[in-house]
C-alpha cells in the first residue's frame, strides 16, 4: 500500500451496520483506495435522528453528545449517508445550542464530517478507474441533496467508473421513506415510493442508484413487491463493482 494520506473514522450508520454490512465494506475499500486509513470507532451508535425527528429532543441531545465524544478526535469523519451525515453536520450545532461546551465541540466535529462522495471528490481528490460501461438512473436522497449539497459528486464518481446516468423524471423528489414516516403513514409513503420507482423504471436503466440506505431499502422493497426487475444499489457498491464481482467469483 502506498503512503497513507490520513486517517478516516467511519461512521457506519445503523442501517448499514445491521442490514447491509456489505455496503459498509464497499465504503471501506473506497476510502482505502483513495489513500486513507480507515478506523471504525467501536463506541459508535445511532446519530440520534429518530429521537430528534420524533420530538424527543432531550434524548437526541444525549445521543449527540455521545457521538461527538466518540468521533471528535479523528482527522476526518466519513458517513455513507446523507441523512445521518446531515443530522450530524447540519443539525447538531442547533440541537446543542444551549450547551456551550458541546456546541463548541459540535462545531469542531462538523467541520471534519463528510458525506462519502463529498469526501472522495473534494478531500481525497479520488479518481475512480474505469471499470465497465453501465447505464443507471440516480435518486437524489433528500437530506444529502438539501442539507449537504450532494448532487454532482456521486454522479461524477460514477461517470469516471464508466456509468452513464439516465436521469429519471424528478430525481430530487422524495421516495417516501422519511424514517418513522413510512410506518406511521404507510399509505402516503406507499404512494410516494410507487411513483418514484415507476419514474425510475421508465428510464430503462439497468439499475437504480442512490446514496442513502433508507431510500434504497424503500425503493428496493417496493420494486420487489411489484415484481419489477430493477436492482437498487448504493453508489459505493457500484464504485466497487469490480471487487464485488471478484469476491463473488473467489
Amino acid at each position, binding site marked *: 500500500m502506498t503512503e497513507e494520506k490520513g486517517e478516516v473514522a467511519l461512521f*457506519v450508520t445503523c442501517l*448499514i*451496520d*445491521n*442490514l*447491509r*454490512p456489505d455496503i*459498509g*465494506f464497499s465504503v471501506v475499500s473506497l476510502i482505502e483506495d483513495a489513500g486513507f486509513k480507515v478506523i*471504525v470507532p*467501536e*463506541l*459508535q*451508535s*445511532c446519530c440520534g435522528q*429518530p*429521537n*430528534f*425527528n*420524533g*420530538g*424527543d*429532543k432531550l*434524548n*437526541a441531545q*444525549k*445521543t449527540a453528545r*455521545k457521538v461527538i465524544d*466518540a468521533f471528535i478526535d479523528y482527522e476526518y469523519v466519513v458517513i455513507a449517508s446523507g441523512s445521518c451525515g446531515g443530522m450530524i453536520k447540519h443539525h447538531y450545532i442547533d440541537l446543542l445550542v444551549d450547551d456551550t461546551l458541546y456546541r463548541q465541540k459540535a462545531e469542531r466535529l462538523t467541520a471534519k464530517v463528510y458525506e462519502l462522495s463529498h469526501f472522495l471528490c473534494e478531500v481525497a481528490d479520488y479518481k475512480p478507474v474505469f471499470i465497465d460501461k453501465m447505464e443507471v438512473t440516480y435518486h437524489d436522497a*433528500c437530506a444529502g*441533496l*438539501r442539507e449537504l449539497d450532494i448532487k454532482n459528486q456521486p454522479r461524477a464518481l460514477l461517470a469516471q467508473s464508466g456509468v452513464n446516468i439516465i436521469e429519471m423524471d*424528478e430525481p*430530487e*423528489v*422524495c421516495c*417516501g*421513506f*422519511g*424514517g*418513522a*414516516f*413510512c*410506518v*406511521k*403513514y*404507510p*399509505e*402516503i*409513503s*406507499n*404512494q*410516494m415510493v*410507487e411513483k418514484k420507482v415507476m419514474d425510475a423504471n421508465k428510464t430503462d436503466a439497468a439499475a437504480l442508484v442512490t446514496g442513502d440506505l433508507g431510500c434504497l*431499502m424503500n425503493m*428496493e*422493497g*417496493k420494486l*420487489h*413487491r411489484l415484481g419489477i426487475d430493477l436492482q437498487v444499489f448504493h453508489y459505493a457498491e457500484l464504485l466497487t463493482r469490480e471487487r464485488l464481482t471478484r469476491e463473488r467469483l473467489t
Partner: protein
Amino acid sequence: MQVNSKDFIPLVNLALDNNSLQASLGMLGKGLSFKRTAAVADFPEFDQLRDEARDIKDHCLQYLDIYLMKFEEQVTNKGGHVHWASNEGEAREIVLSLCQAENARTITKSKSMVTEEIDLVPFLEDHGLDAVETDLGEYIIQLRGERPSHIIAPAVHLSKSQVADTFFDQHSNLGFNEKLTERVDLVGEARQVLREKFLGADVGISGANFLVADTGTIVLVTNEGNAELTTAIPETHIVVTGIEKIIPTLEDASTFIRLLARSAVGAEISAYTSFITGPRREEDQDGPKNFHVVLVDNGRSEMLGTELQDMLRCIRCSACLNHCPVYLSIGGHAYGSVYSGPMGAVLTPQFSRLEEAKQLPNASTFCGRCESVCPVHIPLPKLMRHWRNKEFEAGLNPLSMRWGLRAWALLNRHPLLQHMLASLGIRILGLFGNKATGYIIKLPGLAGNWTKDRDFRTPPSTTFMSQWKTMQKNRQKKEV
C-alpha cells in the same frame, strides 16, 4: 378556525382513493414546479431578493408594534379606519357591525385566507347577509359548500365536469339551463353571474397581500380582476388581514411582488397588482366612501419571540404546497384545515390546538423541498419539528412511541450493548425471510406497516461491526 385534522388518517385514505383528485394533484405538482424552475432560471436576482425579503420581514417583526402604528396613522390620515381584532370572534363581529352600519345586504368578496381562517362568510350568511366569493375557485367551492383545498387554487381538487355539474345545479334559477362542457364556457357563465353581483354590491371585502406602513397602502394581487371590482365599486371596502402582512415601504413591496408570482405559479407577475391607499377622494368618480382595515392577530403575536416567529414571514405564495410530495399525494382537504401543506402543518396547531392538529407536523418526511423553494427562507421542517417537540413534551404521542424512543436513546448511550442486541435482532429478523427470494414479505407489529405494500430484504446474519471486529482480530493475529 374550524379544524377537523383529527380525522387526518381517514381523510388521507379517502384522498388516496379519489382518482379525480389524484389526477388534479398530478397536474398541479408537475406543472407548477416546472414553471417555477423556469421562472427562477430566467431571473438572476432571484436568490438575492429572497435573502432581502427574509431580512425585510425579520426587521418588520422585530419592530411590529411600531410598524402597525405607523400603518394605522397613515390609513387614518387618508380618511380610512383601522380596527384591531385580538381573535377570530372579534374580527367577525367587527366586520358584521361595519356591514350593518351601512345597512348592507349584498357583499362581494375577493380571495383572502384570513377570512377563511376566521370563517367569516358563513358567519355573515348566518346574519342574513348575501356574501359571494368572487375568485372563481372560491366561488365554485362556495357553491359546493366546500373549503379551499389549496391556498391559492382553492378548487384545484375539482375536475371540469364537477364544476359543470355544480353550475348546472346552482345556476338554473338564474336562467342558465345548459349543461356546459367547455372550460371557456364555464368561465363565461361565472363571469355573467358574478358581474351582476359586482355591479350591485353594497360592501366589498378583501384581504391584503401586503400592508405598506409608509403610505398606509394595501397591496392586492389577483389574476382575475375580481379584487379591483370588489374594491372599486361598493360604497364600503373592508380589508381583513393578518398583522404580519406589514412591510415598511413601497420599495419593499416591489421586492415581494418580484418574488410572489414567480414562487407561486412561475409567472413574472400576476395579471393585476393593486396598491390601494385610503377611501375615494373627493374628485374621484368611483371607489369606496368608507375604507376599513381590520388587523387580525388570532394567535400571531404569540408566535413572536419563539421558534415559530419565522413562520410570520410567510407570504402565502403556496410554493411549499406545490412542491410537497405529501401534499401532492393527499391534497389539501386531508389536512382538515384551510391551511394545508407544510405551511398548514406549522400554522394549524397554532391557530387551533396541538391536540387537534398534531398529525399534520408529523406527516412529513422532512425532505426539505418546501424550505428549498420558500421565497422567504422559512425553515419549515424545523418548525414542524418544533411541534413534534411540543407534542413529546406534552406527552401527546402514543406510549409505544415514547418508550421506543427512550429505549433507543438508552442503547445509544451503551453502544456495545446496542451492537450485541443488534446482532441478535437481525438473526431474529432473518427468521422471517424467505430463503429462495431473500426477502421478507410479512412482519409483525409496526413493521407490518412496511410489509403491507413493500418487501424487506433479509439482512445477512452478521453485522458490519462484528465482521469488522473479527477482521481486525485476524489481522492482528497475522501481524503477531
